[in-house]
C-alpha cells in the first residue's frame, strides 16, 4: 500500500506501464505467460504467502521486494522470537481485550502460519527496496526506472532501513 504514498504521481507511472494485476484490481494474479516486473510487499508469514511468492517468481522476470517486511521480515518477524503458537495464544486467548471464550481459529481453509521470512529466503529476489515504509520519492524513483527498463540503484540517500 505504500505505493499509494506517491500520490498523484501514480498517474505518471500508470502511463508508463501496462498494469496487469494488483490486490485492488479485478485481476489478482500476474498473467500465466509472464510479466516483466513483479513487486511483493510483506514478509512470508504462512503457506499462502509462500504460494504467492512462488507464483510471482515463476511469472515475473524481475521480482522486487518492497519494504522492510519483504526485505527483512519486518515487525511480524518479531514473533519468530517466541514462536507462532505463543503469538496466536497471546493474540486470541490471553489478550486483555478478549473475553473468557477466546480461542485460536482452526478452520482448515485458513493458511497455516509459518516462521516469518524475508521474501529472499523463499525465492530469489532481484531488487530490494528497504524502508518502513520506503520513502514515497524512493518508490517513485524505483517504479519510473523499472518502467523504463532500468534497474534502480538503491544507495546513498535512497538507502534507508527505517
Amino acid at each position, binding site marked *: 500500500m505504500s505505493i499509494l504514498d506517491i500520490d498523484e504521481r501514480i498517474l505518471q507511472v500508470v502511463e508508463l506501464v501496462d498494469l496487469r494485476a494488483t490486490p485492488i484490481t479485478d485481476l489478482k494474479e500476474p498473467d500465466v505467460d509472464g510479466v516483466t516486473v513483479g513487486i511483493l510487499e510483506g514478509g512470508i508469514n504462512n503457506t499462502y504467502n509462500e504460494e504467492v511468492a512462488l507464483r510471482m517468481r515463476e511469472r515475473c522476470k524481475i521480482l522486487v*521486494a518492497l519494504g*522492510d517486511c519483504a*526485505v*527483512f*521480515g*519486518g*515487525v511480524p*518477524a*518479531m514473533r*519468530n*522470537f*517466541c514462536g507462532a503458537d505463543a503469538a496466536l495464544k497471546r493474540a486470541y486467548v490471553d489478550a486483555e481485550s478478549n473475553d473468557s471464550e477466546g480461542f485460536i481459529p482452526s478452520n482448515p481453509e485458513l493458511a497455516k502460519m509459518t*516462521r516469518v*521470512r*524475508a521474501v*529472499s*529466503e523463499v525465492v530469489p*529476489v532481484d*531488487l*530490494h*527496496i*528497504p524502508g*518502513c515504509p520506503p520513502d514515497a520519492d524512493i518508490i517513485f524513483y524505483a517504479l519510473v526506472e523499472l518502467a523504463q527498463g532500468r534497474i534502480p540503484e*538503491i*544507495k*546513498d540517500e535512497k*538507502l*534507508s*532501513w*527505517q
Partner: protein
Amino acid sequence: MIKLTIDGKTIDVQEGTTVLEAAEEAGIYVPTLCHHPQLTPYGGCRLCMVDIEGARTLQPSCTLPATDGMVVNTQTEKVLNARKFVLTLIFSERNHFCMYCQVSGGDCELQNRAYDEDMTHWDLQPNWQPFEVDASHPYIVLDNNRCILCRRCVRACGELVGNFTLGFEERGANSLLVADYDIPLGESTCISCGTCVQICPTGALIDRQSAYQGKETEVEHHVGVCTECSVGCQRDVLTRDNRLIRIEGEWDADLNNGLLCDQGRFLPLEDDRPRLLTPLVRKDGSLKAATWDEALKAMAKGLGGGKGLAALVSTRLPVEDLALFKSLFADGLDAELVTSLEEGKATASLAKMAEKLGKPFEASLDALKDTGAVLSLELDLVDEHQVAGFFVKRQLQNGTRLFVADSNENRLSRNAKVTLGLKTGGEVQFLSDLLDAIENGSEDKALNETAQVLKEAENPCIIYGEVFAANANEKALETLLTLADKLGAALIGVKGDANSMAAAQLGLEAPFKSNGFKSAFVLLGDEDPSQKLVKALEDVPFVVAQAAYSSQLTGNADVVLPVTMWAEQSGTYLNLDGRLQQAVKSLDAPDGVLTSQETLLKVAESLSIELDPDWKTSLIARVPTVEIREA
C-alpha cells in the same frame, strides 16, 4: 620510519603504527566497528580487513603493524566482498532489525557501515534466539539482542574508567554482556559514568533519558566545560527545541578523552528542583512576586554597605561573574566580608604557600597518566572529582601502586595497595614520618612499604583534596614540598567546585562566621545551599538571594532574584590544574530570568556603582598554585 604503499599511495609512518592508522594518515578510509581511537586495538569484528600483497589471507588492519615495503589494498573485490560478508554475519547473529531501534537513522555505526557498503538487505536470517533485556539501571538499558560482541564497552569500562564492571560470559553466539558475575546492572558495581553507552556502536547500551528523543541529525551540539566540579571535563551538551537531550564526553578533549562521571553526564538531566522565574520581595512576612524594579529598590534599601554586609558567591559560576561580584561588593560597597561559598577551604592554604614560594608548585592532571605510584592524602575520588579517580584507577592495571592515607573511611582504599591511617590534624606528623621512612626506613611495615615503593616508582604523584588543604598548616605543606622534592613527585591539588581555583585567584577565600552581620547578599546561581549556610544566614536580619532554584535559603530570604542555571550561561572556568576553559550556553533562559552578570550590572546600576569588567588581570595577579594556561 616505515615506508608502505596503500592503494597505490606511498607514505612514511612511525614504527609501531598499525595499517589502519597508516591508512588514516594517508586519507584512506577503512571501515571499523570494534575499533575505537581511545581503546587498545582489538581485532574482534573483522570489518577492517585489507589485502596485503604476499599474505595468504585478508588481514585486520586495526591490529596489524605496518612494516617496511608493505603493499596494502583496501578496495579489491575480495576486500569489498569480505566487508559485506562480515556485516551480513553480524546482522544475522541477533536482533538487528533497524525499524524498532532507538539508535537507527544516524546514531548506529553498524547501520551506517552497511549503508556505506550499499547493502539493501542481508542474505542470512538470524536464529531468533531472544535475550533478556536488563533495564534495572536508573540510566542505562542493556539489551544483548542488539549487541555485536565488539567489547568496546568492556574495554572502556576497564581501560578508560578502571572499573571493570562489564564483562562477557559464555562463548561464541551465546556470548552475553553482563555486569560483574551476571547480576542486574542496577545492582552491580557500575558507577553510572555512562562511558559504555557513549562508546557502544549499536543500540545494545542506550541511556533512558534521551531514548527516542532525537537522533544525531536532529540535535544541536554545544561543546564546553562541565561545571559540576573542578576537574573541568570537556563535554558536549545535546539539545533539541531548547530542551536538554543528552550529555556526552568530548572524545577529542586532551584532559578527559571522552570520559565523564554520573554527575557530569546523567544527574543534570534529573534536576527537578522548582525553578525561580520572577523576583520575589518579602511583604508583610511573606515572599510575593515583584518586578525587577521593585526587587532592586527593596534590595538597595535593606542591603546597606561597609561594615555589617556579607557577600557570598558560588564557585560554580564563571570567572567573569566572580570578578564582577568582587568588584561590586569589595570595591563598590566595601562589604565587611566578600568570599565564596567554599570559603577557600580547598585552596586558601595552598594559595598562601604558592605566594610564599613565589611560583606554582602543583602539576597538571596529565601527571597521573604515566605515574608509577600515587599517594592520595585525605581525598576520596570515588564520590567527588570522579574522573580524576578514573585516571588513578585505570593506571593500576599497568602496575601503578596506589597508597591511600585518610582519617575517614575512603572508598578508593578498595583499590589501594596500602591504606594508611592519618589522624585529622596529624598531617605534619604523618608527612614527617613518611619522609623519615623514605630516608631511613621504618619499623612500621605499611609505612615502610609505602616509602620504598614511592621512592622507587617512576613519576610518583601525590594527590590531595579539600580536607587536606583545610587541615594542613604551613608546616604540613612545607613537609609535603620537601617530600615531593625528595621523591621527584608531582603534586596535584584537587580543588572544590568548578571555579574553586578562580575564586582563590581573586582572593574570595575568607571564612564566613556569622558574627552579627546586618545584611547579606548570596549569589547562589544553581548551587544547592548547604544546611550550614541556611543556618548561618538565619541570624542575618536582611538577606538577598540570587538563585536559579527555590530552596530553604530563598524561602528565608527577604529579596530573591532569579538567575540562569549552568546550561543557560556562557563563561570561563579555571580548573584544578590551571586550564582556562569555556562553558557555552546550551539553552535559552526562561523569559525574565537574567544571567548573574546581567543581574550584577543591573544591581550596580541601581546603586550607581561602576564595575570593573576586567577579570583577566585580577585572575593572574596572584601567584597561582599551578600554572594557568588557556586550554
